[in-house]
């Protein structure tokens, strides 16, 4: 069942996300939530199916960034729809659809995993990092709405706090993975340095909240942070497109 045919589920999930987005725009909340939930279930199956792309289950393709990120955004949207039924969902769903669209054009095969990538710390790292990225994108979206005057001035703050907390978890799990794999808790490589750059950037954005005169600028920084995450993470993903893949 979990073969390369599983890619159809990604297409179906994306279609359902797009329908959910349209329904949210036209304020059909219940139908929209239902479409979102079904899309999310299909994408979850798709992600599990990615583990079998090579004919034997490996974890890394399940948590591969470009495919996990829209799932994280959809998860956030599902939980938000269930916990705050009246909350506006258009922005989150638009982001989910946009990132899903990228998956459609991305190499769908799996990069043959090295033994080190199968570490539990690697899995935890990719999970927490993708979820943090999703929250940063949501924060950036809210910040853009704030700057446009369509959302409260500090609407992005909660998203930033959660994103930053999870990104800190990602730094911790990443450090442990780096140590058990390579013998260093900090690597002087591009990946680790850019990750630290994102962490310090958002730390600055959060500290801005405590400077009353500078606080109004935090929406600018949150939006810029979203772009920084996009540039760094999708720069890596595009680079990884050149890697040898199997099962796509």
């Amino acid at each position, binding site marked *: 069942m979990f073969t390369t045919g599983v890619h159809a589920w990604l297409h179906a999930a994306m279609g359902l996300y797009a329908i959910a987005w349209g329904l949210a725009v036209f304020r059909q909340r219940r139908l929209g939530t239902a479409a979102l939930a079904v899309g999310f279930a299909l994408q979850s199956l798709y992600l599990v199916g990615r583990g079998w792309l090579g*004919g034997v289950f490996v974890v890394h393709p399940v948590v591969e960034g470009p495919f996990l990120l829209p799932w994280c955004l959809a998860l956030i949207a599902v939980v938000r729809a269930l916990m705050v039924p009246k909350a506006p969902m258009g922005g989150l769903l638009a982001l989910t659809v946009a990132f899903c669209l990228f998956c459609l054009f991305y190499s769908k095969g799996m990069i*043959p995993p090295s033994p080190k990538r199968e570490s539990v710390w690697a899995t935890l790292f990719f*999970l927490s990092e993708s979820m943090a990225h999703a929250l940063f994108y949501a924060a950036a979206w809210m910040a853009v709405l704030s700057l446009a005057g369509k959302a409260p001035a500090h609407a992005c703050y909660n998203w930033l706090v959660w994103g930053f907390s999870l990104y800190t978890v990602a730094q911790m799990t990443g450090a442990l993975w780096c140590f058990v794999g390579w013998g260093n808790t900090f690597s002087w490589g591009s990946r680790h340095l850019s990750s*630290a750059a994102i962490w310090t950037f958002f730390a600055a954005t959060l500290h801005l909240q405590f400077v009353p005169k500078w606080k109004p600028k935090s929406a600018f920084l949150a939006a810029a942070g979203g772009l920084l995450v996009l540039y760094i993470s999708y720069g890596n993903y595009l680079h990884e497109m050149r890697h040898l893949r199997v099962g796509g």
Partner: protein
Amino acid sequence: MLKSIWHTLGDIRLAVILLLTASATLLAGSFHAEDHFSLFMALNHMRIQDWLPVQWASRPELVWWIPVLFVIMALLGINTFVCAANRCLRLVGQRRNMARGRFFYLLIPSLVHFLFITIMLGHLASFTMGRWQRIPLAADSPIAVSPDAPDYRVAAIQDEFYPQASALGGRLRQTAVALVGAGGQALQLQYGRPAFIDGRFLLIDKAPQGEKAHKKPMPAGPPPARRPGPASTEAAQGPNAGQPLLVIVSDPGLAVIILGLTLIMALMIGYFLFKPKSAMWIAPVAVLALLVVHPAAAAAAESRPEELAQIEGRIQMLSPDPAFKDDRYGLIVVKEALTSLKEGSGGIGACLVHEQTGEVVCTGRNRQYRPYFRSDLHAEMDLLNRYEDWLRKMGGRTSGADPRDCAHLVLVSSVEPCPMCLTRIINSGIKKLVYVTPDERGGMVSRMDRLPPFWQDRARDCDYRLAVCSPAVRQLAGDLFDFSVRTWDKKKEETK
């Protein structure tokens, strides 16, 4: 002068600037590391003081950002220390006015900042004192972990491959390296699963340039023999691409980093657990499970009616605890606070109690927003207005000579009074005041030393302190107040 320097060093604006500069420097460094991979990867297995001077002399344009980063991080460490220390000192100064639990709760963010400094110091120790020895692995070769530990011998190197039938067929899945000590003790290493011997970590890595050596499937049967010979000879020759290497790591910063990270996680969890006021309790679960649901804080803020109903339920279940002498009045003011919240004003209540008889003379509550906006109608102000109006109707105070003769009254407030209310209370002649929960942000009782001298003088013989209440009542008072503060913050944002 020194005070001014101290405050400048701890200024949070400096923290923002340093963090942004660090981010820009790290980003610049990541570009250099991307373009000169081998150059910077060498630093992962060398002490920085051995690597940097050599590279600085030959190509400063590539490595300039490393000393800059160290300077920024040093300044950030100082800034963080001063800022967190200032906050701790402030909290310790207010310690007597707050419950122990709340004191530790408020202390957690500062502790997290101290731990951040500790982790940075741990990294510094790793960069300057760490040692990484890389030895190509070969069957039967001896391994000297340290001068004090007995030698080990590589007993077997067993590669495991993905099944031939799969698309990954023939690719390396795992390598198991068996080491046997002189005393017969056995150790097994795998990729990602290090061992710890004599203060050193042993792990297996792979010689750079991919896994070319492993692309062909190994024949079934006993593990293939690898080139024999002493490890030192092989090291001198250099490992083949893809060949497994034994990495012996001696990293004095590791324990500090791991301990710091663990404590930060524990404190973060504790911070959320200490605050059972909202759906924030989801946080530790989410952090631990690493399956984060959507910002529960936002959700909690928007599920206000449910939260209020929950608080009301808790109040109804509660009865005063006789072990705490102010509990009875604490519960009265908490109920007043709830009424105020339900009316649409702030969650603060107050009452006046006759000290000798224990009779509640008058009650008041926050009426700032209902029936219409009155900026002065905080709970204590409302209480004193009502009491003084009632007094006028009753023909004035018992002592006509002194309109402030109310030494027999105790004012009980659910929250620490603000500056406006505190001066009004002092002015009213009330000598005894107790409040159920402190207000770190807006309370003035804990900052009486900052009142103008006139008011300090007037309050000299007054007894204003935290009420002796049960933790349940104190928690309720805090919850009601926090609820109204969050509502107010949200309204303010919406208005903007």
